[in-house]
């Protein structure tokens, strides 16, 4: 054995292949991961013959479903980075859907956006009032807001929509008076539609890539573009400006921030109100998809957004990846119940990979466990043709749970997240 001399700060070389795969920082690693996922999906698609796995329609649906989750998660990011846990995202989203429905049926889609964001921000203000000013436990206040928001939405609908000439009723608003425009990428996804041609030919990998690209470039709504842009914008705001530094310092060590002259209470207020506004925007998006406000439209997406935030390690890029994953799981279960079964094959392949990897590291127990579960998934895949709707409905939630239980130990939340900060008591 020769000793490896390393200068401080650089890691010892672990062979050219490992370096190629894991070197070069998080961006390159993420790219590798994305490529590996794409190949894996192509393989599973080719074996199972489930075109829905990588079809452009599934991808478009995945993007559509990822956006509200991502917006809620971004909302959570602002609030939790300032140290306020926000279980109330779901409630703020509900308020957002109601606000969008109310403004939208009267004054069109732009007003719907404003209305939803305002209503969501009101929910955020309430949460800030309870947690920052009154020092209430964050989770308790969030749960209360969820109960309250559902009640308020129902109450307002009952008052304003039951005898409304424009339509609507106790559980839904009249339809929006105008729909937001959408945009397709010229030539590639509209007109000649080259990507669509490629996708139709079912060539291994190439068609899959085409399907994915076409899905995210054809008929994309304005709000989707806005939401996607908000991810890097949040990163820049939170990590590259003085405002962001101050906001994050409130989530890491509020007492220290206070001593340096940061107005901690005000900062937390701003963060939680932004949080509510973003969650509300997620609600607006759901209203745009349906063209109408309906009760229970959010369907727990606020909670999944929170999970995406945790999965993404309280970082914008990570939460976007999480939202994409859950959006994809959701899209798959909506579009094709048989395609969800193909996910079992995917799990089997993944676990087999884990088994081999653990075996090479001589961790026999883990390897055997992984291989056992891989075998189980494979058997299930071979035995089951189609899952019943009740079971398919919780695909995204089960995915969330599995991913969190695999990943949560590597995560680090903001240090003072969820702690009530009272000036002068620390």
């Amino acid at each position: 054995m020769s000793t490896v001399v390393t200068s401080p700060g650089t890691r010892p070389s672990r062979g050219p292949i490992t370096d190629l795969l894991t070197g070069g920082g998080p961006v390159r690693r993420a790219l590798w991961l994305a490529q590996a996922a794409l190949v894996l999906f192509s393989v599973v698609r080719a074996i199972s013959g489930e075109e829905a796995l990588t079809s452009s329609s599934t991808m478009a649906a995945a993007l559509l479903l990822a956006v509200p989750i991502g917006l809620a998660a971004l909302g959570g990011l602002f609030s939790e980075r300032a140290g306020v846990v926000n279980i109330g995202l779901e409630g703020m989203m509900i308020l957002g859907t109601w606000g969008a429905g109310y403004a939208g049926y009267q004054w069109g889609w732009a007003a719907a956006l404003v209305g939803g964001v305002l209503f969501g921000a009101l929910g955020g203000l309430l949460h800030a009032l309870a947690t920052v000013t009154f020092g209430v436990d964050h989770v308790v206040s969030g749960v209360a807001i969820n109960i309250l928001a559902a009640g308020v939405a129902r109450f307002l609908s009952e008052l304003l929509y039951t005898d409304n000439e424009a339509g609507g009723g106790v559980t839904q608003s009249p339809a929006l008076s105008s729909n937001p425009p959408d945009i397709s990428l010229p030539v590639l996804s509209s007109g000649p539609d080259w990507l669509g041609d490629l996708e139709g030919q079912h060539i291994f990998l190439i068609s899959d890539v085409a399907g994915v690209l076409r899905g995210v470039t054809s008929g994309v709504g304005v709000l989707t573009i806005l939401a996607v842009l908000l991810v890097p914008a949040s990163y820049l705001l939170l990590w590259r400006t003085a405002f962001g530094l101050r906001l994050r310092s409130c989530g890491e060590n509020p007492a220290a921030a206070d001593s340096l002259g940061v107005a901690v209470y005000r900062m937390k207020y701003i963060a939680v109100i932004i949080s509510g506004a973003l969650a509300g925007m997620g609600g607006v998006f759901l209203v745009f998809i349906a063209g109408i406000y309906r009760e229970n439209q959010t369907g727990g997406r606020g909670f999944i957004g929170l999970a995406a935030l945790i999965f993404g390690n309280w970082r914008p890029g990570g939460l976007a990846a999480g939202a994409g994953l859950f959006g994809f799981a959701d899209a798959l279960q909506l579009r094709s119940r048989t395609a969800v079964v193909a996910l079992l094959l995917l799990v089997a392949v993944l676990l087999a990979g884990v088994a081999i990897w653990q075996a090479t590291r001589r961790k026999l127990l883990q390897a055997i466990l992984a291989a056992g579960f891989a075998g189980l998934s494979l058997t299930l895949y071979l035995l089951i043709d189609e899952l019943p709707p009740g079971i398919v409905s919780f695909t995204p939630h089960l995915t969330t749970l599995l991913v969190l239980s695999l990943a949560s130990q590597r995560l680090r939340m903001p240090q003072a997240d969820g702690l009530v900060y009272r000036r002068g008591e620390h």
Partner: protein
Amino acid sequence: MTALRRIGMALFAPVLAVVVALVISSLVMAALQVNPFRVFEVMLDFGETPAQQVTAIVVIVNRAIPLFLAGLAVAVAFRMGLFNIGVEGQYRLATIVAAAVGAAVALPGPLHILLIVVVAVVVAALWAGIVAVLKVTRGVSEVISSIMLNFIALGLASYLLTGPFRGSEEGASIISTAEIPESGQLGGLNAIFGAIGLANPPRQLYGFLPIAIVVGVFIAILLNRTRFGYDLKVSGLSPSAASASGVDARAMVIKTMLLSGAVAGLIGLPDLLGTTHSYTTDFTAGLGFLGIAVALLGRNRPVGIAFAALLFGFLDRSLVPLQIADFPASVVTIIQGTIVLAVVVANEIARRVARRNAERGTATRTPAPVEILQGADA
């Protein structure tokens, strides 16, 4: 501190919260041109004949029993600083499995009921156990995992109801499990009304009431009079102090969640054994979330939870009369939501008042101007 003063302190926060919540809801109603006084009048109107009045009380108590159990389930975990948001999924899954098992077997009376109860308790406890295991082995926050398990439990319940456990005819408007036979049904307690000279209402008072009371007493003794209860409370107040005194934090998490889940398993049973005798698509939902509110209002103490459950039962009873009187029935949800928010704020204020009193009691000096200033802006 005299006993009277202590009771006063304990009642201060909840009563203040209810009053504040009523004022806020009245303002909301008034702003939207609903007359709040008319609404409260309808809510307090129990009917004219004695039979109607007793019926109203029976409806309130029947609703309060599951709410009490739900509050208890949440409170057990709460005492340890654990947040069991998964009560909703736990009781729904437990109830459907218990209903199916109860319908499938035929046993002599008490044994049959006992079996149904045990099945429900075990299923819910195991479901809650998943949360605990994920927390201690994988470090997953119990809040997130129990929310996700709620969705999974509801999906599973709907699958079981439409699939393997389906007992109703194909094409029936309400899908249900097969009916539990006579031996597995729990009779009402209406004989009591005759005994104390009240009118016998058409509605049966649930026979589950004594069981719920026993469970409440059991939990109260367990939490306040045993080593386990002490460990649980210490783990909640100060995890470091608990582990320093030899409490195994991981084992405590698992035991507490199992206990919380076990109580949660009982929530659906008053309705199942008392009236419906089968699990249907429209089986009572939302009790898990209301349980959180009830536990907060009752300040995690069994007696407090019982009163909170009665209050929520009273509010829920007024849903139908409000609809008949052409008022928006969701007023009730708003009042409940505001109560929760008000009660947590009031609890916080009461805690601070109590601490300030304690500080004043121990300190011999008068408070410095700085403290007064802080007290003013707090």
